[in-house]
C-alpha cells in the first residue's frame, strides 16, 4: 500500500492538469495523466541546486516544465543527494546527467517521466543472462492500466506499465519469482511466474481504497474524495454491475445513504411502478419532491411532480429507457455546496449520471449475456381466503345478517358450481417470468480520438402476465482532439422501447376463489348467477350479474406503449490558457411515445351500454428538452495553493405536446384504428417552460489541509411571477484534513477529516405559469351561444421559489487501513413553501399556489466500510463490509395561518411530520357482542365511529433506512450480498382496508386471511368484529386498524462470480471471462410477519416481489 500512497502523493503535488470532468474511475484517472492535456511541457530548464534529495529535484523540474514524474520512492531511496547546475538546458540532457552512473534511467510518455531501474537492452536476455518477463495489465473491464507498479517481490526491482498497459521487467529466476502489481484504487495482486515469460494480469478495483476515487461534480467540476467539501455520494459501474437492468433509478436502492426509493402507492395501480425518490426527506408540500436527474451534464425529464408522464394512460419512467450498462457512475448530490450550482432545481438533491467513454488503447470488445428466470415470492403477496375458508366465512356473515341460508347468493346452479370451485387467482395472474440481456461494446482510442460504442437488447417478461418490456439501445460516445487545445465530444444514447402493459389492479386478490375464470365450455366467464332475493312464493330469485373478467381483458385487449428515446450531447472544450478551459455543451433530450389500447368487444371493457362496441385509444407524447451550457473552468496549483473556478451560463427549454384520440363502436375486433370507430373523440395538450441561469464557483485549497468552496447561481424561470422571476442562490463549504497536519500523530489513524457547508437552494418545479393567472376557453364557458373565457387561476405575481437552506457537517475517519467511517449530519429548512392553499374567495378562486410556511428535515447518515478479512497472500480470503444508514426526521414548522390540514389519512399540522397519520384509534372488538370499538379523541373507548375522533399519531417515516453490502473474494471467486433494510415507521395498507371488511364487502371481494380470526361467541377475544353480510358497522372506516409496522430486511441482490483463469482463456484469444450467478429479491424478513396474517411484508407495493435468478457471462476480447 505504501507505493500506492506515494504514487498518489506524487500525482497531487506534481500534476497541474486540471481535474475537471473526471468521471470517477481509474481509467479516466489515467486519461488525465496521459491525455496530452492542456499542459504543454517546456523543454528547457534552469536550475542551480546543491545536495538536494532527488524528490526535490523532480518538484523543481515539474514547476518549470510541467512534466509529471512517476517513481517508486522506496527504490529511489538508494539515490544519493544530487547537485544540479543547468542554465537553459534541455531537460533530457539534465536528466541524463543526473542518472548517469546510477541504477536508474527515465522513460518519457506524453508529459510523464517514469523513473525506472536501468535496463540495458530490450532483448530477451541481458548481458548478465537474466531474462525479461513481459506482459500486459488490464482492469476488470479489460482496459489497459497505465502506470501500474510491477515489482519483483522481496527486491527493489520494478517497472511501470506504459500507455498500452505493457511492461517488461528483468528477473533473476523466472521459476522462483513472484511479481507484485499495485495501482491506485486496485487490489494489489501477486503472480507467481512459474517459468513463464509472458504474464497478462487483470487487476480488480479495490472497494475500500476509494479514497482517491474522483467524485463527479456539477458542471465539469470534480473532486477526489479526500478533497471533498460537500456531500456527494457516488456509485460506480462495478457496484451497478449485476443489478436488475429494468430501470436506472432502482439501481440506487440501498446503496446511497439518505436516498429512499419507494413505490408511490401500496395499491396495485401500475405495473410500471412510479417510484418516489427522496433525498433527505420531503422538502415540499405541493411542488415536486423528486431529485433532479442530470445525464452527462444535461438535465432530463423524468415525469411531472409525481413522475406522471403527460398524455399517457400508463406512466413508463424515462429512466427505464436508459441502458444501465452504459452508466459509468451515478452521483447523488445532497448538501448545499454540492447542489446549489443547480439553484432552483437543486433543493431535492441532484443525481448525476455519467455514461461510459472510451480510453486510449487498442480496440476492446466486451460481450455480456444474461438470462434470468423470475418467480413471485409468495410470502410477499397478500394472503387471501381459499374457497373453503371463503365459503365458511361468507355463510357465517350471511346468517349473522339475519338471512336464511336457503337464499345464500353463492348457491350452485347450471352456470356456477361455487361449492366445487377453488381458483387460486394468484396463479391465474402470475407465472414464471424471464429476463434476457445481451450487450456488445467496442471501445478504444488514440491520442487524438476515443470512442465507446455499445448496442444492447433487454427483454423482461414480468411474472405478472401480460407485461413485457423490450429495450433496443444504442449508445456511442466519441471524442476528438483537434490540435492541442480543442476537444470535441459527441454522445448519443438512443433506445426504442416496447412495453406491453396489462394491469389487473386489485383483481388478483379481490376475485372470489369460488369463481372460475372460464365457463364449462372453456370460454371466458362473463356472468355469475347468484340468488338475489326471495320471491313472493318463497322461491329464490336468480340473477345473472356481470363478471368483469380481467383474464379475458388480458388475453383479448391491447395495451402497448412504444417509445423512441434519444439523449444527445455535443461538447466542445477549448483550452484558453494554462488551467483555463472554455466549454460549450448542447444537450437535447427527445422522447416520442405512442400508446395504443384496444378493449375488445368480447369482454365487458369493450361492451358499452350492453352493446359490443370495442374501444380504442391512441395517445402520443412528443417531448423535447434542450439545454445549452457555456462555461469556463479554471484549475491550477501554485505551490501549495490550488485555485479552482467556474463561471457558467445555462439556458434550458422544456416543451411537450400530447395528442390523444379515442373511439368506440367497431364492426369487429380486427379493425382497431380510431378512424373506423362510430364515435370519436380527440384531445390535445401542451406545455412549455424556459429558464436561464448564471452560475459561479470558486474553490481554494491549501496544502491539502484546508479547503474552501463558494457557489452562486442566479436563476430566471418562466414559471414564476414577474415580481419573482429571478432568484439568487449561494452556498459555502469548508473542510479540514486534520491528518495532513504536522501536529497530527495518531499512528493508526489514516484519515481524519471534518467538513461543513451552508447554503440555499430552490425548488421551481410547479406547473407552468401559475403566477400570471390563467384564462381558459372552452365550451362550458360559453354564454348565449357565444364563446367565452373565464379565469381558471387567480394571478399571484408574488409566487416564487421555495428556498431550502441546507446545513451539512461531516466527519470522516479511516484507521488501521481497514475501517472507514463517515458521519454526516444535516439540517435542511425549506421556507416559502409552495402550496396550493385556500385563499379568500374574493380572489375568484378557491385555492391558489402561494409561498407559505416552512418545513424542516434533519437527520444523519453513517457510512462504514470495513475490510474484515485481509488476504495474507494473493488469492486469499478477503471480506469487505459496507454499511450505510440514514435517519431523517421531518417537521412542518409553519403552515398558512397555522390551520391544520387533513390530507386523507395524513395531516399537515405544525410541529408534526408531514407523514403523520391522522386516524381514529382502533380499540379492537367488544367481546360481548363482537362490535367494533374505537378510542375517542380523549382516549375513552367508544362504540361510535366519528372522524372527529381522529388524532395525529404514528407516522410513516421510518427511523432508519439503509443497506449493507458484503463482498467476499477467494481466489477467482467473489460473492457480493446486498441487504436493504428499513427500521421503524408505519404504513396504512390499502389492501388491509379493502379486504378486511367484516362481511360488508364479502359478497364482491375476497377477504384477507386475518378475517378468519373473528368474533363468534360472547367472550371471544377476537381480532376482527362479528362479520355481517353487507352491513356496515363502520368498522371498515379509516382507523389505526390498518396500520402495519414497516420494519423489514430484504436480501436484495446476491452475486456469485467466477473469473476463468487467464492462462486458460488466453489460449482462446479471450482477455477475460467472468461467469456469474445473480439473485434478486431472494428473501424478505420482517419481525411482524406471520404465516396466518397479513403484514407490511405482504402489501408493500401492491404487487408481490419478483425473485429473479440470473446467469451471466461477461467476455472481454
Amino acid at each position, binding site marked *: 500500500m505504501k507505493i500506492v500512497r506515494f504514487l498518489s502523493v506524487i500525482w497531487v503535488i506534481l500534476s497541474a492538469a486540471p481535474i475537471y470532468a473526471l468521471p470517477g474511475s481509474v481509467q479516466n484517472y489515467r486519461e488525465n495523466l496521459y491525455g496530452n492535456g492542456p499542459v504543454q511541457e517546456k523543454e528547457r530548464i534552469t536550475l542551480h541546486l546543491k545536495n538536494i534529495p532527488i524528490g526535490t529535484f523532480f518538484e523543481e523540474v515539474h514547476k518549470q516544465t510541467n512534466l509529471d514524474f512517476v517513481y517508486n520512492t522506496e527504490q529511489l531511496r538508494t539515490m544519493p543527494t544530487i547537485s544540479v547546475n543547468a542554465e537553459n538546458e534541455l531537460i533530457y540532457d539534465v536528466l541524463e546527467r543526473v542518472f548517469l552512473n546510477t541504477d536508474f534511467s527515465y522513460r518519457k510518455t506524453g508529459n510523464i517521466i517514469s523513473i525506472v531501474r536501468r535496463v540495458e537492452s530490450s532483448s530477451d536476455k541481458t548481458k548478465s543472462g537474466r531474462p525479461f518477463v513481459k506482459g500486459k495489465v488490464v482492469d476488470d473491464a479489460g482496459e489497459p492500466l497505465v502506470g501500474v507498479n510491477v515489482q519483483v517481490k522481496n527486491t527493489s526491482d520494478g517497472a511501470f506499465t506504459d500507455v498500452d498497459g505493457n511492461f517488461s521487467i528483468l528477473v533473476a529466476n523466472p521459476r522462483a519469482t513472484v511479481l507484485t502489481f499495485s495501482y491506485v484504487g486496485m487490489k494489489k495482486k501477486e503472480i507467481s511466474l512459474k517459468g513463464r515469460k509472458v504474464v497478462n494480469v487483470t487487476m480488480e478495483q479495490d472497494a475500500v481504497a476509494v479514497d482517491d476515487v474522483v467524485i463527479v461534480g456539477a458542471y465539469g467540476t470534480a473532486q477526489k474524495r479526500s478533497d471533498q467539501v460537500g456531500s456527494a455520494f457516488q456509485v460506480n459501474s462495478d457496484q451497478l454491475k449485476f443489478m436488475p437492468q429494468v430501470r436506472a433509478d432502482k439501481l440506487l436502492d440501498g446503496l446511497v445513504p439518505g436516498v429512499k426509493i419507494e413505490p408511490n402507492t401500496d395499491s396495485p395501480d401500475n405495473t410500471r411502478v412510479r417510484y418516489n425518490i427522496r433525498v433527505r426527506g420531503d422538502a415540499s408540500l405541493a411542488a415536486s419532491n423528486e431529485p433532479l436527474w442530470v445525464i452527462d451534464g444535461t438535465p432530463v425529464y423524468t415525469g411531472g411532480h409525481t413522475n406522471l408522464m403527460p398524455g399517457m394512460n400508463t406512466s413508463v419512467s424515462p429512466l427505464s429507457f436508459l441502458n444501465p450498462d452504459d452508466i459509468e457512475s451515478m452521483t447523488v448530490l445532497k448538501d448545499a455546496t454540492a447542489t446549489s450550482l443547480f439553484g432552483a432545481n437543486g433543493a431535492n438533491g441532484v443525481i448525476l449520471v455519467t455514461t461510459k467513454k472510451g480510453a486510449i488503447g487498442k480496440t476492446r470488445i466486451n460481450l455480456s449475456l444474461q438470462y434470468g428466470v423470475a418467480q413471485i415470492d409468495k410470502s410477499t403477496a397478500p394472503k387471501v381466503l381459499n374457497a373453503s375458508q371463503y365459503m365458511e366465512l361468507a355463510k357465517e356473515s350471511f346468517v349473522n345478517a339475519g338471512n336464511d341460508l336457503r337464499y345464500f347468493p353463492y348457491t350452485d346452479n347450471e352456470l356456477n358450481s361455487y361449492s366445487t370451485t377453488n381458483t387460486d387467482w394468484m396463479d391465474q395472474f402470475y407465472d414464471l417470468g424471464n429476463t434476457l440481456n445481451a450487450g456488445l461494446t467496442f471501445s478504444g482510442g488514440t491520442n487524438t480520438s476515443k470512442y465507446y460504442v455499445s448496442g444492447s437488447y433487454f427483454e423482461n417478461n414480468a411474472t405478472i402476465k401480460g407485461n413485457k418490456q423490450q429495450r433496443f439501445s444504442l449508445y456511442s460516445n466519441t471524442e476528438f482532439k483537434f490540435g492541442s487545445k480543442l476537444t470535441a465530444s459527441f454522445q448519443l444514447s438512443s433506445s426504442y422501447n416496447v412495453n406491453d402493459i396489462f394491469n389487473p389492479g386489485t383483481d388478483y386478490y379481490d376475485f372470489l376463489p369460488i369463481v372460475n375464470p372460464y365457463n364449462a365450455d372453456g370460454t371466458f366467464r362473463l356472468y355469475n348467477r347468484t340468488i338475489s332475493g326471495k320471491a313472493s312464493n318463497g322461491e329464490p330469485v336468480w340473477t345473472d350479474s356481470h363478471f368483469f373478467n380481467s383474464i379475458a381483458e388480458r388475453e383479448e385487449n391491447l395495451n402497448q406503449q412504444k417509445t423512441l428515446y434519444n439523449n444527445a450531447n455535443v461538447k466542445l472544450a477549448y483550452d484558453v490558457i494554462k488551467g483555463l478551459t472554455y466549454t460549450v455543451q448542447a444537450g437535447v433530450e427527445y422522447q416520442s411515445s405512442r400508446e395504443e389500447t384496444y378493449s375488445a368487444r368480447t369482454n365487458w371493457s369493450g361492451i358499452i351500454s350492453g352493446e359490443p362496441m370495442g374501444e380504442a385509444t391512441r395517445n402520443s407524447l412528443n417531448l423535447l428538452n434542450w439545454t445549452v451550457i457555456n462555461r*469556463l473552468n479554471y484549475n491550477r496549483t501554485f505551490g501549495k495553493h490550488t485555485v479552482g473556478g467556474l463561471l457558467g451560463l445555462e439556458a434550458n427549454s422544456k416543451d411537450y405536446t400530447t395528442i390523444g384520440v379515442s373511439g368506440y363502436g367497431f364492426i369487429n375486433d380486427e379493425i382497431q384504428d380510431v378512424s373506423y370507430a362510430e364515435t370519436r373523440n380527440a384531445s390535445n395538450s401542451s406545455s*412549455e417552460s424556459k429558464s436561464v441561469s448564471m452560475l459561479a464557483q470558486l474553490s481554494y485549497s491549501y496544502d491539502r489541509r484546508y479547503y474552501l468552496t463558494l457557489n452562486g447561481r442566479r436563476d430566471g424561470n418562466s414559471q414564476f411571477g414577474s415580481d419573482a422571476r429571478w432568484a439568487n442562490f449561494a452556498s459555502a463549504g469548508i473542510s479540514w484534513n486534520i491528518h495532513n497536519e504536522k501536529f497530527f500523530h495518531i499512528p493508526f489513524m489514516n484519515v481524519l477529516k471534518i467538513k461543513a457547508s451552508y447554503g440555499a437552494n430552490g425548488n421551481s418545479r410547479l406547473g407552468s405559469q401559475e403566477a400570471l393567472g390563467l384564462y381558459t376557453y372552452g365550451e362550458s364557458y360559453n354564454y*348565449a351561444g357565444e364563446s367565452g373565457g373565464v379565469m381558471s387561476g387567480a*394571478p399571484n405575481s408574488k409566487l416564487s421559489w421555495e428556498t431550502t437552506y441546507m446545513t451539512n457537517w461531516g466527519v470522516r475517519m479511516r484507521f488501521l487501513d481497514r475501517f472507514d467511517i463517515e458521519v454526516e449530519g444535516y439540517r435542511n429548512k425549506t421556507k416559502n413553501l409552495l402550496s396550493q392553499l385556500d385563499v379568500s*374567495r374574493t380572489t375568484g378562486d*378557491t385555492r*391558489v399556489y402561494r409561498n407559505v410556511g416552512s418545513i424542516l428535515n434533519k437527520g444523519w447518515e453513517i457510512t462504514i466500510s470495513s475490510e474484515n478479512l485481509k488476504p495474507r497472500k494473493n488469492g486469499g480470503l478477503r471480506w469487505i463490509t459496507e454499511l450505510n444508514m440514514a435517519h431523517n426526521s421531518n417537521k412542518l414548522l409553519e403552515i398558512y395561518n397555522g*390551520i391544520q390540514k387533513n390530507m386523507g389519512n395524513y395531516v399537515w399540522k405544525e410541529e408534526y411530520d408531514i407523514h403523520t397519520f391522522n386516524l381514529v384509534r382502533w380499540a379492537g372488538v367488544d367481546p360481548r357482542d363482537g362490535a367494533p370499538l374505537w378510542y375517542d379523541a380523549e382516549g375513552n373507548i367508544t362504540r361510535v365511529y366519528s372522524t372527529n375522533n381522529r388524532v395525529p399519531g404514528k407516522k410513516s417515516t421510518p427511523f432508519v433506512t439503509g443497506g449493507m453490502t458484503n463482498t467476499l473474494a477467494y481466489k477467482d471467486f467473489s460473492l457480493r450480498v446486498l441487504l436493504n433494510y428499513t427500521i421503524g415507521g408505519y404504513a396504512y395498507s390499502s389492501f388491509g382496508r379493502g379486504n378486511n371488511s367484516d362481511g360488508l364487502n364479502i359478497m364482491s371481494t375476497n377477504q384477507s386471511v386475518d378475517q378468519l380470526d373473528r368474533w363468534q361467541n360472547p367472550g371471544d377475544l377476537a381480532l376482527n368484529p362479528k362479520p355481517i353480510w353487507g352491513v356496515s358497522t363502520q368498522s371498515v372506516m379509516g382507523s389505526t386498524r390498518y396500520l402495519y409496522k414497516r420494519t423489514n430486511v430484504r436480501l436484495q441482490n446476491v452475486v456469485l462470480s467466477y473469473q476463468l483463469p487467464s492462462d486458460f482463456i488466453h489460449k482462446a484469444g479471450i482477455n477475460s471471462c467472468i461467469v456469474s450467478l445473480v439473485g434478486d429479491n431472494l428473501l424478505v424478513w420482517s419481525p411482524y410477519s406471520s404465516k396466518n396474517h397479513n403484514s407490511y411484508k405482504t402489501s408493500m407495493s401492491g404487487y408481490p416481489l419478483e425473485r429473479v435468478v440470473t446467469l451471466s457471462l461477461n467476455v472481454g476480447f
Partner: protein
Amino acid sequence: MSKLLMFVALLLTITACSDFLEVKEKGRTTLPVFFSDVDGLYAGLVGAYNKVYDYYDNEFSKYAEVAGNMASMKYVTAGSDMVDQYNFTSDPSQETGAVGYIWRRIYEALANVNNVIEYQPSVLAAYPTQEEKCRSILGEALFLRALCHFDLCRVYAQPYNYTSDASHLGVPVLLKTPGPDDNPSRKSVKEVYEQIIKDLDQAENLLNDIAGRDIYHVSLKAVYALQSRVYLYMEDWSNSLKYAELAIGNVELAKGDEYLNMYRNLSVDGEAIFRLNGINKSGKLKSFYDTSCMPADTLFSLYDNADIRLNLLTDDATGTAYCSKYNASQIPNSEAKRDDPMVIRLSELYLNAGEAACHLQDYTLAKKYLKAILTRAVDEAYADNTMNTYSNEDLIRLVKRERVKELCFEGHNFFDLIRWKEDVVRESRSNSSMKFMAYPSDYFVLPIPQFELNANKNMQPNPTVNN
C-alpha cells in the same frame, strides 16, 4: 482572451433576451395575453355572463325561496340540498352547501367581471376605433358588478334598512380582483350600496340602447330596472319610482299565453328585461323545482282560482303543487335540461313603482300599477274589486301580497320579507323544523363561510349564533 470575450458576449446576448422567459401556454392564456384585444375583452365578458348564470342557476336563487315562507321542501333529511337554509341551520362549515357555494360563485363571477373592467381601458387605448364596442362592454360589466355586490349583500348582510344609517356590516367592495394576499375586509352596507349606485350610474351613461341586444344581455332598460330595485331596497322611494318608470317606458305587461310562454317555451317575446341564458347547460333550478321544492299552502291561499299564475304553480296532469317556472315543456332546439333564470322582468317594475308610490302616498299612481298586475292575473273586475277592499293606508299590504304572488320562485321572497321587516311564518303543515322566526334575527343572513374566515384574516364573521 478573445474566447473569453466571446463568452461574455454570449452571456450578455442571452440575458438581454428577456423575452426568452416569456412563454405562451396553448389552450389557456395568461390574463394580460387574454385581454390584449377587443375580442379577448368581449370573450371575457361572455365568460362573466356565464359565471353570473352559474350563480343564478344555483343555490343563490334557491335560497331566496327556501328561506322564505312560500316554499315547501320534499326532502328534509340531513344533507339534502338547501335543507339547512330551509331549517335555518346554516353554519360556517357548510362549504359544499349554500353557505360556501353562494359566496364562492358570486365572487367567481365578480372576479371575471372585474378583470373585464380592469383591462377595458388598456384595450380601448389600443383600439380607439372600436370605442363603441368597448363602451358597451364596460357598461354591461359595470351592471354585472353592481348585481354581484347587490346579491352578495342580500345573502350575507342584513337588509339596507336594518340600521337607520345602513352602517351595519355589508360585504367587501371589490373594484379589482384581489390578489391572494390582499385579504379584503367588509364594508358597511351603506358603502356597498354607494358603490352599486355608482356603478349603475356609470353604466347608465355608457349604454345608450334602451332595449339592448336582447334580453340575455344587459341593456339600458336593465340598468334602470336594477336602479329601481336598489333604491327600493334603500327605501329611496322617489328614485325607485323614477327608475321604474324609466324602465317601464310605455310598455305594457305581457298577457295570456305570451306571459305563460316566457316560462313554457322560454319565449323571448314576454316581458323579461334581463334573463340569463342557459343554452347548452344543464339547469340546476329545473331539477330543483322538479324534484325537491314545491309551492307551499301559504302561497296557494293567496290566489283567486282564475289567476293565470296558478298555471305555473300546479302540475297540469295531476293538479298537485308544482312550480313549473323552470320546466319549459317546449324548449327551442329540444334542449331538455335548459332553464333560463329570470333576473328582472317588467312586472317587478310595476310592483316597485306601486310600492314606492304607496310610500310616497301617491295612491292613484300605486293603484294604476297594481291594476295592471291584477288585471293581467284575472281580469279588470277582479282588479277593481280587490283594490276596493283595501284602504289607501292599507294598499301597501296588497302591493306586498301581489309581489309575493307575482315573483314567487324568482329569487325575491325571503329578501322581500326581511326588507319589509316581517317575520317568517310558514304553513302549519310545513316539514321544516322552523315554522316561525321573528324579525329581526341573526339567522336572516348566511354565515360567512369558515374557509373564507380561515383564509382571510380581515374578514369579519357574521354575528349570528352560528358564526
